[in-house]
């Protein structure tokens, strides 16, 4: 079975996380679960990957963290929310992907 290339997907982890955060603030495991579900289980993001993305984007001001209690269990967790800069960055990344996809696709054979 073909697996997703971690080199290629690395540049778009931020896009996936920001997409999910655009809908609502969320926390680590919830995000990784949603990425898995939305990709039909084809992409499972590793915890270390997720955390380093959080840390990098927080440093760049794309997301903010805050402590909050989970509605169901009342457990304290670190939540993340997207900032205005994060929204702009997300749209840039989307455009970048459109371009990348358009270019690469011209060199890819259709279904063999």
């Amino acid at each position, binding site marked *: 079975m073909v697996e997703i290339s971690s080199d290629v997907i690395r540049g778009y982890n931020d896009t996936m996380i920001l997409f999910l955060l655009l809908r609502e603030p969320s926390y*680590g495991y*919830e995000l990784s679960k949603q990425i898995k579900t939305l990709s039909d289980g084809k992409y499972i993001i*590793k*915890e270390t990957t997720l955390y380093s993305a959080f*840390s*990098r984007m927080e440093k760049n001001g794309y997301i903010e963290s805050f402590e909050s209690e989970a509605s169901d269990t009342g457990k304290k967790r*670190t939540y993340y929310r997207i900032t205005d800069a994060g929204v702009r960055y997300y749209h840039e990344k989307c455009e970048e992907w459109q371009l990348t996809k358009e270019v690469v696709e011209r060199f890819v054979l259709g279904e063999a």
Partner: protein
Amino acid sequence: MDAIKNYLDNMFANLPGTPSVLRAKSELGQMMEDKYTELIAEGKSENEAVGSVISEFGNLSELAEALGLEEEIKEQKAEENSNPGRILSTEEAAGYIRMRTKKALYTALGIALCVLSPICPIFLTEVGNNISDIFAPIGMFAIVMVGVGFIIYGSSLKRPWKYIHKEKCTLSMDTTKYVSDEQERFYGSYVAEMIAGIICCASSWMPAAVFDEFTAYGNVLGGSFFFLMVGIGVFLLIHSHIRRGAYRNLLKLNKAGTMKASYKAAEQGKESETMGETIGKEIEKSLDKKEEVKYISPVAEFIMDVYWPTVICLYLCSSFITFKWGLTWIIWPAAGILHRVFSRNLTE
């Protein structure tokens, strides 16, 4: 869940305990716990859940940038590749602690015997005939020899363990925990022994003073009790100190500043201390201070090195020559004051 916690502990064991590292660890732990809880809720077995959480964790080098630890993680990898060192197993650590416990007993016993040895001539000279006069020094010498034998045997015990320092051994997180827990358990008896030892030594002159006043055999009983008290005190102090060394030596193998080295502080962070712990820590602090002292010159260092043995010699000689045990104990408080004056003027 413990397996996951251990995995994470081991992962972070050699990293420094900076706030960003602690935050990463707690958040990663949170994610793993969430995932684990959900897998269990889905009906997965414990093993399956732990397996998939760990396999989907990722690797540490990915975190390097997030933690601002590019250098450390690279260094750690390089070190692991070039010189893996030896990781002491928990059994080895337990063996080392057993050895130190045994060594503590023999060494303390040996030194205590040397301290007790003058009791022999004190009694024999009191008998006062020719034979006892001859046997007084012989008996004392014999006891000292036995004591020295114990000391030598005690120090020979550590020989098989030399590799611990030679081979760059380190402790795994599990072993660190084991040793820390053992140390915690040992702490109470350590403090008790220390306090009892100090009390014995500090009050050793008292029976001598009392006997001298009230009994006809004041010299004999006073002197004997003095050495007995000092002997017991010295035994307790040395015994507890050497045993304590086992735990300190083992824990010192962990590189300072890493999460392992600060395991207790990070893990428990407990504020309240019992009175015994406070006293124990004070004693330790004063012992540590002694190790760090720097003298102004080699001569000064020599003087301080021979200071207490000289005082003991002076005390024994003057006491045996004059046989005024009720008076000669004054040497001790005087020596104590003089020691303070010396150490203030001869250290940096």
